[in-house]
């Protein structure tokens, strides 16, 4: 690898990002600019920003590695990402979120929920959830980027974490959401080109689609014994129904991430950045193409990398990557792709990490300034516009520091799990109240609070006492009962979302049914223009 060429490419890339950061800075005059990009974003920029925020190093590096070991059944997550994450999200959630956000003058996801119910508690709790738990997801993204920089450039992991996060934090602090979305559009385009190239190159090298899948099917004997015992007998088939890996794939990954996307604060806020439904209609097509090109490629190439490694070295991708799932895709790219693609992929990964990380920093920063400090602590007292923007910048700085610390503390192979935890937790707490507040006038503040707290505490109980991976780490269940989890066998691998989301939905619905709406005027204001909306 020619490091001089690579460093020149990276410097050009960073110069473009710095310029876009400056453009965002000069165009951001008010908190509405800083938090919502002035609500007049171009549909291409909005779609690419949504996609590039959605798809991070977690998806490409983390889930690609997981797919290499668990097989192509992860394509169900690709289906969920397109059908739920784009079609349902934009057509049914996006249009109402945009108009309701406009009617209520909401600038953040917690503020939308808080204003819809005239509830400071909901806004404060949602802001705190973002502030406390989103850094775990941000750390997963940062780890993915740092591992790539470490693999390709030989820069020590700790230094990679520090430099990369400061670079991203710099342009977010400077230009707010405008800078984030401008750079997302460039980064999304790079990701799209890189991933399409990877898909075509992989299939070409393996002799075409049918030949590649046939070769992978024939590798069934190479699957490690522990994976076979967990239910995966072929990389081109679904795990045995009810097996532990069947539950991991379908409850944690497909359900947790596939549904969880609907209640992601950093994605929901994108709907509030466009001027009309026309932009959302156009973004549906652009976003779906982007998602298919990225996650489709990842979940197909991950398993197919086994064919490469087996033909070349006689062992599978997991072993070629030193038994670290987060290294499968980087090693696969480094070993099999031409040098020009390694340079391109380096840019793809930098873009995927930057676009998601910048949105996470922005979401955490606005949660601290707008939802926790301005509305939670100062109780809507009139704060100067300049102070709000300054508070948001300080909030982003705090999120940056917390994320760096977490990235240095978390262990290997954590990327996909940390992402699934955050997506699942947000869905468990907010998906039911968020869905009902958009579509049902009779939902009450008490119902929403019951659903949010119910989802949170059921999730917490599952993490501490039921779900093996987290319960084992916390050790509380073992200390109290002597066993790692309360329920034996399969129950230890069922994701908390399976229990928490229905609990949250039932609580929200039934408590709303037996309590009355106390803010009819706000409800009418929120739904103004929505009922007669042309879909």
């Amino acid at each position: 690898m020619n490091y001089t060429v690579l460093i020149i490419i990276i410097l050009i890339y960073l110069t473009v990002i710095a310029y876009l950061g400056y453009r965002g800075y000069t165009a951001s005059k008010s908190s509405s600019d800083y938090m919502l990009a002035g609500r007049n974003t171009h549909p291409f920029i909005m779609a690419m920003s949504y996609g590039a925020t959605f798809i991070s190093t977690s998806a490409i590096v983390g889930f690609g590695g997981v797919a290499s070991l668990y097989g192509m059944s992860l394509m169900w997550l690709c289906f969920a990402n397109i059908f739920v994450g784009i079609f349902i999200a934009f057509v049914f959630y996006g249009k109402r979120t945009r108009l309701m956000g406009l009617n209520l003058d909401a600038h953040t996801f917690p503020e939308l929920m808080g204003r819809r119910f005239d509830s400071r508690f909901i806004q404060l709790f949602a802001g705190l959830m973002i502030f406390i738990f989103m850094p775990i997801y941000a750390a997963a993204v940062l780890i993915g980027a740092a591992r790539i920089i470490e693999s390709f450039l030989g820069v020590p992991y700790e230094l990679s974490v520090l430099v990369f996060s400061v670079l991203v934090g710099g342009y977010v602090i400077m230009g707010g959401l405008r800078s984030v979305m401008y750079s997302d559009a460039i980064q999304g385009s790079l990701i799209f080109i890189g991933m399409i190239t990877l898909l075509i190159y992989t299939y070409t090298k393996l002799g075409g689609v049918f030949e590649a899948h046939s070769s992978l099917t024939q590798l069934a004997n190479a699957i490690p014994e522990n994976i076979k015992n967990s239910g995966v007998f072929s990389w081109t088939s679904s795990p045995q129904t009810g097996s532990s890996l069947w539950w991991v794939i379908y409850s944690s990954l497909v359900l947790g991430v596939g549904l969880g996307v609907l209640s992601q604060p950093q994605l929901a806020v994108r709907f509030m950045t466009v001027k009309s439904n026309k932009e959302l209609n156009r973004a549906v097509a652009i976003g779906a193409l982007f998602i298919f090109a990225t996650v489709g490629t990842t979940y197909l190439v991950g398993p197919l990398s086994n064919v490469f490694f087996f033909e070349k070295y006689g062992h599978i991708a997991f072993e070629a990557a030193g038994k670290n799932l987060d290294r499968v895709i980087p090693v696969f790219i480094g070993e099999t792709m031409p040098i020009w693609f390694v340079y391109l992929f380096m840019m793809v990964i930098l873009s995927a990490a930057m676009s998601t990380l910048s949105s996470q920093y922005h979401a955490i920063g606005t949660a601290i300034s707008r939802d926790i400090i301005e509305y939670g602590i100062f109780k809507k007292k009139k704060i100067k516009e300049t102070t709000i923007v300054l508070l948001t910048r300080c909030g982003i700085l705090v999120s940056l520091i917390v994320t760096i610390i977490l990235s240095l503390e978390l262990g290997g192979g954590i990327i996909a799990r940390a992402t699934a935890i955050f997506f699942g937790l947000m869905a468990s707490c907010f998906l039911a109240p968020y869905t009902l507040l958009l579509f049902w006038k009779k939902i009450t503040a008490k119902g929403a609070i019951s659903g949010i707290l119910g989802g949170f505490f059921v999730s917490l109980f599952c993490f501490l006492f039921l779900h093996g991976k987290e319960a084992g780490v916390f050790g509380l269940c073992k200390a109290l009962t002597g066993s790692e989890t309360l329920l034996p066998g399969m129950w230890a691998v069922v994701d908390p979302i399976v229990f928490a989301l229905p609990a949250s939905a039932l609580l929200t619905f039934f408590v709303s049914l037996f309590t009355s709406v106390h803010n009819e005027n706000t409800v009418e204001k929120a739904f103004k223009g929505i009922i007669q909306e042309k879909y």
Partner: protein
Amino acid sequence: MSKYGDLSVILAILFSLISLVLCIVYGALNWNKGGNISPEEAQKEQSWDKEEAHISAEL
């Protein structure tokens, strides 16, 4: 199970492609729809423009 994979995986790939086509067709059919802004929205935007001009003057 065929040599290209079992029905579940083939369906997952097929449904992903169908969803992609659905989104593209939806986007194409509605490409120029939904651009009308209600008078209330336009009024709201105007009031925000004034507010932002005031803020900028303050800054």
